[in-house]
């Protein structure tokens, strides 16, 4: 028997590699952070999806997981952390507060992080169960697997970042 070979596009191969080795940056602020701790634990293991290493530095991470209530005073910090991440980067908003301000419709709470940074996947829940967070991560994996290698340089992406005031 001869050697086998595999024909595919580079996009798919790179996507496969990227999606199975996401290094998340947990930006855990409130209660959803505790659900995330449960997700990282042995029972609902996040490590089996390739996220064994939680880098707490934006310089080395791919996925910004914003979990918890973001106050208006914290918003510039979240934006700064997002800006420090290198392309390609994805953002997942975990929990009702990160998605839309949640139960806190108040003068001091940012009504959804998508007011300051572009978000890829929203995981609703207050807090979402670990299975829901895992489902969100799997949707991110689908997005990453199907992403074109040219997306980050495209005009559409640049326009998206411009709309958030990010150069």
């Amino acid at each position: 028997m001869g050697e086998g070979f595999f024909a595919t596009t580079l996009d798919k191969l790179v996507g496969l590699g990227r999606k199975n080795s996401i290094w998340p940056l947990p930006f855990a602020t409130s209660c959803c952070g505790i659900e995330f701790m449960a997700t990282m634990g042995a029972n609902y293991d996040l490590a089996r999806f390739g996220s064994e290493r939680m880098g707490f530095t934006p310089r080395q991470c791919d996925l910004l997981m914003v979990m918890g209530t973001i106050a208006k005073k914290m918003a510039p910090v979240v934006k700064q952390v997002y800006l420090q991440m290198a392309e390609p980067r994805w953002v997942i908003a975990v929990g009702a507060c990160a998605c839309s301000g949640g139960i806190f419709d108040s003068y001091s709470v940012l009504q959804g992080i998508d007011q300051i940074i572009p978000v890829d996947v929203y995981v609703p829940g207050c807090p979402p169960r670990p299975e829901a967070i895992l489902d969100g991560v799997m949707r991110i994996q689908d997005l990453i697997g199907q992403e074109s290698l040219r997306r980050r340089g495209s005009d559409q992406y640049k326009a998206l970042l411009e709309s958030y005031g990010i150069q």
Partner: protein
Amino acid sequence: MTNEHLKNRLTEKFGETLSGFEETYGMLTAIVPAAMNLKVMQFLYDDEALKFRFLTDIAAVHYPDRKGEELCVVYHLHNLMDNVRIRLKAYIPIDQPDIFTATALFSGANWMERETYDYFGVNFVGHPDLRRILNVDEMDYFPMRKEYPMEDPSRVDKDDEMFGRGGSF
């Protein structure tokens, strides 16, 4: 040290200037004129029998209906040795909400007064660093005053029906 004894000590020292003595849930409450807040707290601190040397909390309340004394600054003091608490209330007008700072007496008053300033606009005279602590620095109003709603003013997508306002209900 009972509340009766405490009240007697205070009235014999300060006389008629203290008023509104109440006892809620076992804690004596007294209304202090705003100009005298430091004098009363210093007396309670220094006195060897009273020893109220721990400041538990500084808060404020906004009563829009009390004209001329809308804001009430509330001090909670605690005697750790005998486990006795006392509450002092000082009413100040909202157009000139000045009151002396307690930072010289209690270091813990520093941040608590900043929070009271942040939310009610109470001006603590003599405070070393009176600026907003919990809200965004650029905020130009004092959110806990009764005229401001709690809800975020910049939302455009709220469904009024879900909040019990209008809609088809």
